[in-house]
């Protein structure tokens, strides 16, 4: 298991390639990557991500450990950036490796659902109109009910 919280960019290709150099029992690798999406108006200048140092790593570790208890997983990777990002930049990724695909998919979705609503990150969008905190979505909270 590897949990990384950093302000520096990460290389999805490098991370995914390295993660999938797995042991002989791995048959399935799922990755999810979150990317800074522009606003509908196309006027996003930047996204700033604040986090809670210390608690962030602990929360991500706990979420990953719960996923490992619940599904048969060979490995888990979580990378999440904070600080100043521009549209098109990668915010975060999770990766799961498992003997079977159903476990790898379910665990990746579980990690994402919990990471969205239970890991201490807060996004702020900077546009020509100024800065605005991104509101949590009811659907993200509701997504936890399925687990």
């Amino acid at each position: 298991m590897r949990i990384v919280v950093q302000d520096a960019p990460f290389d999805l290709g490098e991370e995914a390639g390295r993660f999938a150099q797995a042991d002989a029992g791995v048959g399935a690798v799922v990755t999810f990557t979150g990317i800074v999406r522009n606003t509908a108006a196309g006027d996003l200048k930047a996204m700033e991500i604040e986090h809670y140092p210390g608690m962030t790593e602990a929360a991500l570790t706990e979420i990953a450990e719960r996923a490992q208890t619940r599904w048969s997983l060979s490995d888990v990777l979580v990378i999440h950036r904070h600080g100043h990002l521009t549209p098109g930049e990668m915010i975060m990724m999770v990766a799961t490796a498992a003997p079977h695909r159903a476990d790898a998919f379910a665990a990746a979705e579980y990690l994402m659902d919990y990471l969205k609503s239970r890991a201490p990150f807060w996004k702020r969008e900077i546009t020509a109109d100024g800065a605005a905190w991104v509101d949590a979505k009811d659907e993200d909270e509701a997504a936890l009910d399925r687990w």
Partner: protein
Amino acid sequence: MQVLYFAWVRERIGVPREEVETSAATVADLVEELSAREERYAVAFADRAALRVAVDQTLTDFDASLDGAREVAFFPPMTGG
């Protein structure tokens, strides 16, 4: 006790963290005590449904005890990922 604020809670209160002398028994007591002290706390804590709280870096709720707590943090619902 260290009290930390994040995102718009931090902006409304004006500092990211502060040392607070308090004998509040629960998180709810601490919120009332701070809100009574200064308007900026009352404003930041006005809508509790829009607030989340962590005691010693673990998510909890307003009923949580502060007995032995070293660090309390207030923030809006998380928006990571």
